[in-house]
């Protein structure tokens, strides 16, 4: 019995927002806003070919220059943001929607169910994530939808593992025992008590997987297995810029920067959320 205050203070301590969350969320908002803006407006038509203006360096007319068909790089990056974000977002959705219930079930049932789920998990984990995605798209054929499925598949074990680990800890809590003496089934307890208490962990993991998904989508597009032309894609812009990097470096730098900023934004958001939810880390800063 240590000296805890006898009467719990009703006032909540003021929340200190982690700097990484502020910066990360800010950058993420900019990326999102750009993607949304591109739905209704881009400086130039994304698919408009203008051979006369091909390979112009960044200028007042074309802020990020033009490519070998004279297409505006800024417009392509803005439009490409949609593609990257949607693919990564849906892939995270697949991971959460399938992985979380699997993890919760494994923790709730234990025994052979747990073994089955976790060994299945190990099987997927055994393949390097990107390699697996390449394999899946190679079998199913290239395209944005198959890229989503491929990235989604390797997100599943990530969420299964996070959910199971945290849920196992929660199952030994006395409030879960109390819920069991209230006659509730394991499924009901998982939904009412376990899931809400590990939501914060899942949100943090989702932000991190979102960032991983952006890189994965770019990787798949780079090798030609992602979104197909003429749909703009950061990964394919990089691939196309490869041969021209000597005389038109902006073609590689601009989409590279777009990927870099987006991944940084999401990673910072994930880190920041973790700090926010984990009072132990928060106290140490």
């Amino acid at each position, binding site marked *: 019995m240590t000296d*805890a205050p006898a009467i719990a203070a009703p006032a909540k301590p003021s929340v200190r927002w982690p700097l990484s969350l502020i910066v990360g969320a800010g950058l993420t908002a900019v990326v999102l806003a750009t993607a949304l803006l591109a739905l209704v407006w881009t400086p130039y038509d994304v698919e408009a070919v203008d051979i006369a203006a091909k390979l112009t360096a960044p200028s007042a007319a074309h802020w990020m220059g033009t490519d070998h068909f004279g297409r505006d790089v800024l417009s392509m990056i803005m439009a490409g943001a949609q593609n990257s974000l949607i693919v990564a977002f849906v892939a995270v959705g697949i991971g959460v929607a399938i992985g979380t219930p699997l993890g919760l079930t494994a923790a709730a049932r234990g025994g052979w169910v747990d073994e089955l789920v976790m060994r299945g998990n190990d099987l997927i984990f055994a393949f390097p994530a990107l390699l697996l995605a390449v394999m899946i798209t190679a079998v199913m054929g290239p395209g944005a939808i198959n890229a989503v499925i491929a990235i989604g598949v390797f997100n599943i074990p990530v969420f299964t593992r996070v959910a199971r680990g945290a849920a196992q800890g929660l199952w030994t809590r006395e409030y879960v025992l*109390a*819920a*069991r003496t209230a*006659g509730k089934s394991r499924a009901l307890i998982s939904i009412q008590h376990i899931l809400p208490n590990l939501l914060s962990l899942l949100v943090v993991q989702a932000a991190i997987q979102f960032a991983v998904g952006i890189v994965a989508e770019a990787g798949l597009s780079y090798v030609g297995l992602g979104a197909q032309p003429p749909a703009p894609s950061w990964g394919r812009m990089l691939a196309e810029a490869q041969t021209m990097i000597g005389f038109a470096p902006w073609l590689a730098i601009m989409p590279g920067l777009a990927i870099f900023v987006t991944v940084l934004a999401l990673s910072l958001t994930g880190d920041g959320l973790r700090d926010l939810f984990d009072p132990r880390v928060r106290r140490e800063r």
Partner: protein
Amino acid sequence: MTVLDIRDLSLSIGSTPILKNVSLSVAPGEILGLVGESGSGKSMTALAVLGLTPPRATLTGEIRLNGQVVSNAPDAVMQQVRGRDVGIIFQEPMTALNPVMTIGDQVAETVRLHKKTSRKEALAVASAVLDRVGLPAERFPLTRYPHELSGGQRQRVAIAIAIALTPKLLIADEATTALDVTTQAQVLDLLKRLVREDGMGLILITHDLAVVAETADRLAVMKDGELVEEAPVDRIGAGMAHAYSQRLLANATHAPTRHSVPQADAAPVLQVEGLVREYGGAPALFGKAKTFRAVDQVSLSIQPGESVGLVGESGCGKSTLLRAILALETPQAGRVRVKGRDITAARGAALKSIRRDIQVVFQDPYGSFDPRWKVSDLVAENFHLLDARPSPAEARRRVDEMLDRVGLNSAAADRYPHEFSGGQRQRIAIARALITEPSVICLDEAVSALDVSVRAQVLDLLADLSDRLGLSYLFVTHDLSVVRTVTDRLLVMQAGRIVEQGETAAVFAAPSHPYTQKLLAATPDLVRNHVLEKETAG
């Protein structure tokens, strides 16, 4: 010459005063018992001596250690002082030790921090010190890791670290609270011996007046950051001066009045027959896997209105037995009948209807509620057991009524568990257990974590509820002093078996089994030592 001299020590964090004009001293070879309830400032006083107060704390007054002023001393000075002049032992021996360092290295570390010795010399010192605290190198090599030791042995290592450099002052902050009573008695004996041998001063910080009564020479009582009384320890029996000290003593020995008597002739509400619970070990390559029998052929029964204590030390199987009784674990053999119905065999709706009659209150008032649920939902959770669930309005009315019954107002229903104190949370837990109007309530160390004043209130509440509702209780606890005043009958459990049972008063007066005798002898007992003498005299 005093070892420690504190004059007018005041400490505040921000604008909140934590300590107010505390003055106390400790002489060489003296044991000062520092008692008080949670938040009374006793731990903060110790931390102030070590210069380990929180970063934003401001401190006035003077602390002298061996004549040297250490209050507000720079950290560089305090680093020299800590370990060399003053040692401290904390409550939790597992977290106080580094799990990846051997015990020899951990003791040697303190030596090497303060003396320019080689690792070999430091380890030789460590070996000698560990021998002194009862961990001789032949049986406990220096290369052992903390996880290879029991709780009591770990606490001995922590003591070895604290006394390695023979400091003049040792502070034990609830150092025996987490230990079993027999282990606690051994550790207290060890501390007493070290104090006498080294002429060390010892501050024994504890919430347990009984421990102080048996160990200390002098006691100091703290309340809300103030020192309210300082007296020789025999004053506990003779009568203490300050009203708060008197109340503390009264609460520690509090016996709730009960009016109803158990119905001896009625059918038992809870009946356990030949219960066995085994845990499988790792499957062996050849032959059968080793199993561990946590509960071994246990039988017991509880009459309506009866209050039964189940006591035993950690690892004796009492928690496993409780879980089996509550059908949270499936026993390998035996039956548990609640009002004649077998809970072990029941499934589905039948199980739910049996569960209505047997409910539980857990120890930890912090861990037994989902932090995201409001009190109204937590208390109403057991409505899940009813065939016809009440409407939301009706449920709310019954929750409010129940909260009122356990002494909380209905405004509590809309708040979250973290907004309540430990005692209030235990009331909420009792309300949750009572909402389906059960016949038996199992209390798993339900008052062990509470301060004595709060504990007395909760015990009164339980006695009152038993009178009014004819409830039966099963008190599962390691603390004999809890069950003494509130139970009719006592069961003593050791290594999975019940080794003794009988009327509580009879067991306390004349324990027949050697284990019960050992347990009773090791339990610090105010009634036996002080109050009883007074009562028999008067």
